[in-house]
């Protein structure tokens, strides 16, 4: 069963303005955590994303696509990264999400919809 793990800093501005040494330490811890899970095949893919200020949103209005600057959810809680988990059930996905090594990150788990056969 695949789950999308959506990662969002609770506060983007605090996330971006934290001291460099601290950011590096956290990043090293997360990289280690990520590699461990990837090696075991529990995380099959995923990426950190650039900040919400780089986001562009496309909406379709009256059949016409319109393009706007910024993310489609409030920038303060914008998604900062994602991973695709491949695990037997929600408990296994929750165990991974609970072991996330950084502070101040909210995680949403969404089961991936299986394609209809």
């Amino acid at each position, binding site marked *: *069963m695949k789950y999308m793990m959506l990662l969002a800093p609770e506060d983007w501005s605090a996330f971006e303005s934290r001291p460099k040494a601290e950011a590096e330490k956290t990043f090293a811890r997360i990289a280690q955590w990520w590699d461990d899970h990837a090696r075991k095949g529990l995380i099959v893919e995923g990426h950190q994303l650039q900040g919400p200020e780089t986001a562009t949103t496309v909406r379709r209005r009256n059949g016409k696509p319109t393009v706007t600057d910024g993310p489609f959810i409030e920038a303060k809680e914008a998604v900062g990264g994602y991973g695709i988990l491949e695990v037997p*059930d*929600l*408990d296994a996905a*929750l165990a991974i999400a609970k072991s996330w090594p950084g502070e101040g990150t909210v995680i949403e788990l969404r*089961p991936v919809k299986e394609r209809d056969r």
Partner: protein
Amino acid sequence: MVREEVARLTAAMVRLVGDFDLAEDAVQDALVAALERWPSDGLPQNPVAWLTTTARRKAIDRLRREVRYREKLTLLEESSMPDQSSPDERLGLLFTCCHPALSREVQVALTLRAVIGLTTAEIARAFVAPEATIAQRIVRAKRKIVGARIPFRVPEPEERAERLSEVLAVLYLTFNEGYLATAGEHAARRDLAEDAEWLTSLLADLMPDEPEVLGLLSLMRVHLARHASRIDAGGRLVLLEQQDRTLWDRERIQAAVMLLERAAAMRRPGVFQLQAAIAATHAEAASYEETDWPRILHLYDALDSSAPSPVVMLNRAVALWHVAGPDAALAAVEAIAPDLDRYSLFHATRGELLRALGRDAEARGADKRALALTENPAERELLSRRIGG
């Protein structure tokens, strides 16, 4: 293959309950449930085991509804199926229904439906909610269980404590919903307390080494033992102080206290054991005046340090009243006023304290505020009497 399995299953059930009709009915019920659920939920990993468990559950449902089978019910609960190596699947079902990925109200509705076996209409009556709301809640929950694949099993030991606390919270809430209901129109809600007690006792049988399960069961039983004195002949709520203690079932109280002692001997204290100890201290007192208030105060302090909450502080203030007088208690109550401004019992307690201090006008004001905040008919009646008198 199906017919053969059904025959084997029926035979096993007959052996178990010693009643052919009941066994056959239970197996039929299980087959109907399978026809309803397998097409949408998918085939279970082990269909025979699923049918076996379901049949047992259905048999329990039927037994529960018929008083003449009381003795056999005990037999059924205590025995395990002959060729079933896995632990009781009801336990897995209960943990699934109370999974933290489901909201509390969904956990409660699902537990009542799937584990206790109430109909949607019965649940709706018990919670005074429209049947459609409950039905929708249950449908959505089932969809999430299947869609997000919430597993059907007893959690691993390392997360057992956390998950068990979810289950106990659901049972406690269900019990209170029933117990706090009063006479007359809400008879359906009172049954809820009995149902919660039944399921908790089943849980205690299945997990005998969990002191908090025993603590909760003891708490429920102490409350039920005093039930007869809570409501007077006119259906009015009677406060602990005025209750006729001769109506209390001393034997049941004693049994509940022994259960609590068994839990305490495991030396893993918890909030339900503490609450049971408080209830037991009240239940063992010969009169309201002779209550061991210093002990109650001490227990509330312990409760506050393990699970701090303004409601605990409010109850602690009542104990403090009897240990240190109404002045000290009122000061303690005023300190938590901001947290409990929307809580009826807070204002009712404050009203009592003000009256004890001779501040009658302020007391009436507090009672009026309490009245505006409760919908419980018995509580309303009591407060109206106080304001009028």
